[in-house]
């Protein structure tokens, strides 16, 4: 394909399609870090691939392996992953209204309902563009996220002791990177400080995994209280 052909092809893509594709590439690529961190946490390559294929919601996947890496129980990992996935219910509600998918498409739309597909669809004002944005971002991220998870898992598996390559530092950076965009206002920063302190103080006192759930309880109470006092 010549350069002008490529440009002509690009022009034929609608804004929603282009946005969906670029989000798919950016997000899909960091599937590498999920794959590598997951095997470093002690999961097998197959378990890692299963999480990306079936759970398919990045934050919850990182939470699940993060708890396992910290020595937490499967139940604590399940709790943290499920709580972090709660926002997907809100996304599902928005997307259900926007796309009104029918039959088998409804089941697939639910699976592909994540931060990226919801954001792409919501950023468009035209109904057909919203639909295109959702399916391109959702399908694109699903494909690339799974491919790069597998690449990361296989790489991590061959490299050996992950601490030698600072992979535990990569996990710290990944979680901070997921948190960072949510710290734009003073109120979430205050909440983060309280929860960070509660987690650190409770690590020596509570069984592994529970400090996370304690922080979740603090967060939920904070949200409830803040919403009532704002009214």
């Amino acid at each position, binding site marked *: 394909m010549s350069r002008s052909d490529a440009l002509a092809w690009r022009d034929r893509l609608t804004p929603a399609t282009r946005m969906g594709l670029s989000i798919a590439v950016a997000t899909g690529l960091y599937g590498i870090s999920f794959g590598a961190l997951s095997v470093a946490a002690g999961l097998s390559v197959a378990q890692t691939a299963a999480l990306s294929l079936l759970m398919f919601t990045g934050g919850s996947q990182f939470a*699940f392996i993060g*708890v396992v890496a910290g020595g937490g129980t499967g139940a604590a990992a399940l709790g943290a992953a499920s709580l972090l996935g709660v926002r*997907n*219910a809100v996304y599902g509600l928005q997307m259900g*209204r926007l796309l009104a998918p029918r039959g088998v498409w409804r089941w697939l739309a639910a699976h592909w309902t994540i931060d990226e597909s919801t954001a792409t669809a919501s950023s468009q004002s035209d109904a057909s563009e919203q639909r295109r944005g959702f399916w391109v971002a959702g399908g694109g991220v699903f494909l690339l996220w799974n491919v790069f998870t597998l690449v990361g898992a296989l790489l991590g598996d061959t490299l050996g002791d992950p601490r030698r390559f600072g992979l535990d530092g990569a996990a710290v950076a990944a979680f901070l990177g997921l948190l960072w965009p*949510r710290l734009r206002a003073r109120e*979430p920063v205050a909440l983060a400080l309280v929860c960070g302190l509660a987690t650190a103080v409770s690590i020596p006192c509570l069984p592994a995994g529970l400090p996370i759930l304690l922080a979740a309880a603090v967060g939920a109470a904070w949200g409830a209280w803040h919403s009532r006092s704002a009214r």
Partner: protein
Amino acid sequence: MTLWNWIALACAMAYATKLIGYSLPERWLTSPYMDSIAGSLTVALLTALTVMNTVAAGPHLAIDARLGALVAAAFALWMRLPFLVVVFIGALACAALRLWF
């Protein structure tokens, strides 16, 4: 239960949560009250995961190379570098600190 069972259960929960949104009456979830709780819950969980991965060493607290990774990552994020670069810098800082000390 084996880890495989917990994975299966967690995946089922994740899918059920997404599907619930497509099935529930709108007024249940789109209230400022629920928005506020969902938003705070996310910040709380991500903070706890960051802190735990930085200072937890089994049931104890430890200050080690991971704290350097946290500082380096924060600086990279403040510089508005992309996510993948931030993760790479975190790993690099951690590995370098371990090599030196």
